[in-house]
């Protein structure tokens, strides 16, 4: 029983790890970084940004933020081409599968020391680096108490010399945003402790590794000791270590005497994404991995043959494609929009065929119109097997997962991570079932 997984983002890693756990001989082809590495620190299953897209983020009558499970419900009812609608009959099934996948992910990431806090029953209102708010479902590597609506006071810790960290500006923005959204505004304060030279650098990515070392930890612990309170959130930029974040946060929370959290930071301050990608790499390190570009993919009578750059040849019975979209390189837009490995047909959320259109001419006119590029991807059946243009199975030994699956816009409904989990999980289960049937099936 052998499988090749192409891709090392969240979807590819989940598929590879789930297959390996089921006793399949997995080979993973890893490339560069995909969208997972750009993650800002929240793992969203179906989160809406206030004011973006159609998915509401709060209950229109009660004003409270909707729970992830409620948003899943809405999404399943309103978006028929979304991978969730393809995968699940109803929200209960979605919750069951996603919870199982998250639980498994927690297990795999425990070794590398990364924690995923949260559940599908609670929404969190988290602050971004510039002070804007984000409704998030799960938090990667931060304590779940980072919710700014759950505390009565938020204190920004000033870090001099760090680019993009302007506590006074962030505090003003947060106050403005919470007020405009009709959410309770906690007391907002900025504290300027004596910041040590050891922890001074212009970018969060350069401070974070110093907090993996004992002297860095001690320096930060000295600053935060006794500064917190049960109802006071101490907010730091995303600098809390790279490899041992979970233990560092626990330590700091205990020392400070109250919640300590990072603001969510996206590229170029995506420390959390870097951490997440690194933890996934450590979790999959025990698998057979090849780091090279895939040059050719061919299906034979008994399975797949891959040729990698450098001449390595790989063979397996089933293949899982988790190559992502534009960031990961799963879809190419140099000339026409296409899936470069197998030339799979691509569709957008309206079911229109997208591949073969020159990318620069794909834009639909009008501001605010959904653009085909936003939701382009492979169409797959419930077992995550890609379909041809006529809706037939391309091959019963081929599976897809992650952003490569089309019909949804990962940015607008913020379901990219959830889809990666759900499709990676399902693709692994279906691939294992196919392997179990053997060559005769």
């Amino acid at each position, binding site marked *: 029983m052998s499988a090749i997984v192409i891709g090392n983002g969240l979807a590819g890693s989940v598929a590879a790890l789930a297959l390996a756990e089921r006793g399949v001989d997995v080979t993973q082809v890893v490339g560069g970084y995909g969208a997972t590495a750009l993650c*800002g620190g929240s793992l969203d299953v179906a989160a809406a940004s206030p004011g973006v897209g159609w998915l509401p983020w709060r209950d229109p009558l009660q004003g409270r933020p909707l729970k992830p499970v409620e948003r899943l419900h809405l999404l399943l009812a309103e978006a028929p081409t979304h991978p969730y609608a393809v995968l699940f009959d109803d929200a209960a099934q979605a919750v069951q599968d996603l919870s199982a996948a998250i639980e498994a992910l927690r297990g795999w990431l425990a070794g590398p020391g990364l924690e995923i806090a949260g559940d599908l029953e609670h929404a969190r209102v988290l602050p971004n680096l510039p002070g*804007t708010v984000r409704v998030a479902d799960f938090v990667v590597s931060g304590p779940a108490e980072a919710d700014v609506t759950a505390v009565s006071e938020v204190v920004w810790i000033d870090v001099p010399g760090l680019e993009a960290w302007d506590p006074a500006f962030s505090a003003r923005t947060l106050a403005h945003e919470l007020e405009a*959204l009709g959410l309770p505004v906690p007391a907002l304060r900025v504290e300027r402790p004596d910041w040590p030279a050891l922890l001074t650098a212009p970018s969060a990515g350069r401070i974070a590794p110093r907090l993996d070392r004992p002297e860095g930890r001690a320096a930060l612990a000295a600053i935060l000791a006794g500064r917190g309170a049960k109802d006071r959130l101490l907010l730091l930029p995303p600098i809390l270590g790279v490899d041992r974040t979970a233990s560092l946060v626990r330590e700091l929370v205990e020392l400070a005497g109250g919640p300590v959290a990072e603001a969510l930071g*996206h590229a*170029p301050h995506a420390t959390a994404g870097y951490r997440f990608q690194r933890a996934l790499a450590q979790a999959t390190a025990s698998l057979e991995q090849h780091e090279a570009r895939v040059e050719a993919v061919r299906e034979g009578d008994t399975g797949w043959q891959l040729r990698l750059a450098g001449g390595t040849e790989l063979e397996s019975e089933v293949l899982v494609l988790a190559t992502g979209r534009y960031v990961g390189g799963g879809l190419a837009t140099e000339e026409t929009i296409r899936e470069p490995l197998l030339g799979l047909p691509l569709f957008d959320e309206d079911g229109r065929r997208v591949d073969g259109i020159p990318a620069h*001419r794909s834009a639909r006119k*009008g*501001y605010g119109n959904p653009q085909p590029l936003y939701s382009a991807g492979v169409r797959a059946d419930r077992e995550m097997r890609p379909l041809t243009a006529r809706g037939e199975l391309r091959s019963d030994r081929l599976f897809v997962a992650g952003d490569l699956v089309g019909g949804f816009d990962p*940015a607008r409904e913020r379901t990219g991570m959830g889809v990666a989990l759900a499709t990676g999980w399902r693709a692994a289960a279906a691939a294992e079932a196919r392997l179990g049937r053997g060559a005769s099936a």
Partner: protein
Amino acid sequence: MRGYRGFFREMGHTGTLRAMVLQVRTGAAHVLRQLAGRRPEGDPVARFHADYGPDGVRPPELAANRLAHQAEACRVCGLCTMECSRVGGEPTLDPRDAVVAASRLEIDWRRLGVSPGGACSGCDACSRVCPAGIPIHEIQDRLGRIGGP
């Protein structure tokens, strides 16, 4: 026949057809004005705006061209959309749309019907987050000014 239809559909997609119609119309108007012996008066840019503004045609500007060039680097990753937290934005607007609009031949600014800058909280998170370094906020701002009433 199919070829023609495809041709026109594509032109409709990119706004080329509309650009051509406007070109012919403005050209004809120019000739008619010359024949009528009307001499142009006042600031040429203001005149251009007065004459062609109602059709959504704007004189090309260096800054706009620069932004359009920068916008072409967009890889549609969606980070700006995810990071954007527009307050009370109704109708809802997406920073990605501004980039796509700026990078494509989008002459119909006036008919966008909304002022994108109006819903923007000005946090500049979109520009900061962009892996391609596109000054998205600047584009939004510009769209807001041009597209506004």
